[in-house]
Structures are given as structure tokens and as C-alpha cells.
């Protein structure tokens, strides 16, 4: 049997750090996730710091000529991406808790370090 054919897919952890509209990197990171999903990559997303703001529902960025990031984010599960982790510290700092655009799992510092250890590749946006 061809050993390449049965080689497990690499686990890619995408760390998101940017607020949704302060920096174009937030959207470009999600664009990468969509592309990776199209290539059937094993993706896990971790929202840390200001990036937890990306998850809040009912955003209205058209008033500042931006596109709603939650629409793109909520499309990811359609492409088979279902692992969304969110830094519980950051949630606490911003005083937000639920009503997110995708189903998330809260993680503390210890669980975040486990995510890092378990990933084959980490991309930092």
C-alpha cells in the first residue's frame, strides 16, 4: 500500500488575534481558512485577544464601508470546519459570553497550551 495515501492530514491551528474591522488581517485570516477548507485541511481556529470581538452577532459594519465578517465566519461550518475555540480570559476582559456567530468551546491557558502542542502547524494572524 502506498504509505503517502494513508498519511494522516496535518492538524493546522489558526490563531486569530485581530479585532474584526480595525485591521484587514482579520478578514484575510478568514479568507485563508476558507481556502484551506476548500482543500480539505484539518483546521482548528482559536480566537484570542481582540479577535473574540469577531464572534459577536448582529454587527453592522456597512456604516463604515466594511463587510460583515460574521457572515464569512458562519460559512466555515458549511465547509466542514467545526472546531472553534475561544480564549476565556479574553471573553472575560471584554465582558462578553455568548450569542456568537459559530458554536465555540471556551478554553483557559492550560487548554490553549494543549491546542498548541497538538497542532502540526500553527499560523498566527
Amino acid at each position: 500500500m502506498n504509505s503517502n495515501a494513508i498519511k494522516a492530514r496535518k492538524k493546522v491551528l489558526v490563531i486569530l488575534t485581530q479585532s474584526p474591522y480595525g485591521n484587514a488581517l482579520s478578514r484575510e485570516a478568514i479568507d485563508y481558512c476558507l481556502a484551506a477548507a476548500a482543500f480539505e485541511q484539518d483546521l482548528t481556529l482559536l480566537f484570542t485577544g481582540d479577535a473574540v470581538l469577531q464572534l459577536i452577532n448582529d454587527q453592522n459594519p456597512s456604516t463604515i464601508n466594511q463587510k460583515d465578517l460574521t457572515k464569512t465566519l458562519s460559512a466555515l461550518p458549511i465547509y466542514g470546519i467545526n472546531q472553534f475555540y475561544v480564549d476565556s480570559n479574553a471573553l472575560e476582559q471584554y465582558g462578553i459570553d455568548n450569542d456568537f456567530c459559530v458554536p465555540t468551546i471556551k478554553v483557559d491557558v492550560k487548554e490553549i497550551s494543549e491546542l498548541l502542542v497538538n497542532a502540526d502547524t500553527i499560523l498566527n494572524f
Partner: protein
Amino acid sequence: MNYSLVILGAPYSTQSTTTALNFTKALLKNGHNVYRVFFYHDAVHNGSELSRPPQDELDISTEWKKLKNEHDIDLVICIAAAVKRGVLDNNEALRHEKKSSNLSNSFELSGLGQLVDATEHSDRVITFGP
């Protein structure tokens, strides 16, 4: 070991590119292989043939050119991120009806699939942040 680099910061505005350049040189010096350097976000400005820093500052464009010529490393710029920021090759200039193009011939424009491919084929992928 096989390495790929993802660069996100604009040259001359952030340390991102210069740190990545130093890292690339260190990799090659130590016998590692650089599978690809992928320029995304504001790092697409690395591809502009038109940048011209003062003579007493590092000419980043020339540094990439040297690495390309000496080691034939794969320098790929995200096409979507580049075109929206005004970094165009001849094809894109024609497609978007622009009078001129400015992509240095050390680089090529391609899609995010090249970043996915780099994560698949590299032992390590290092991000140089914005």
C-alpha cells in the same frame, strides 16, 4: 528540515520582513531547505519593483532578489491581497485595465492554495506577524 515562512508585515513599516529575511539567511546557512516564502496581508508590498529606500538603509527588494538568484527560493505573493493594494504583474494589469505593472520578477502572484500547499509540504511554518 523543510521550512516555509509566512510574512504579514509591510516592509519598511514593520520589522516583520527584515526579521524574516534574517531568518531565511540563517536557515540556508545552516543547511535547511526553504520550501516557500508566502507574502500575505501588507507584506505584499515586498513585491513592488518601485520601492526605493535611502542609500543608507537596507534595500529589502534587492535582498530578496539576491536570495532568489543564489538559492532559487520560491517567493509567492497572495494575488488577492496584492491586487487590492496595487501590486500587479503584467497579466493583472491587463485584466484590470491598468496602465502599468510593478511586480518585481523575483516574485510570482498566486492564490492562497500556495499557502495551503506550503503547510502540507513543510516540516515547519513560521509566521512573521504584522
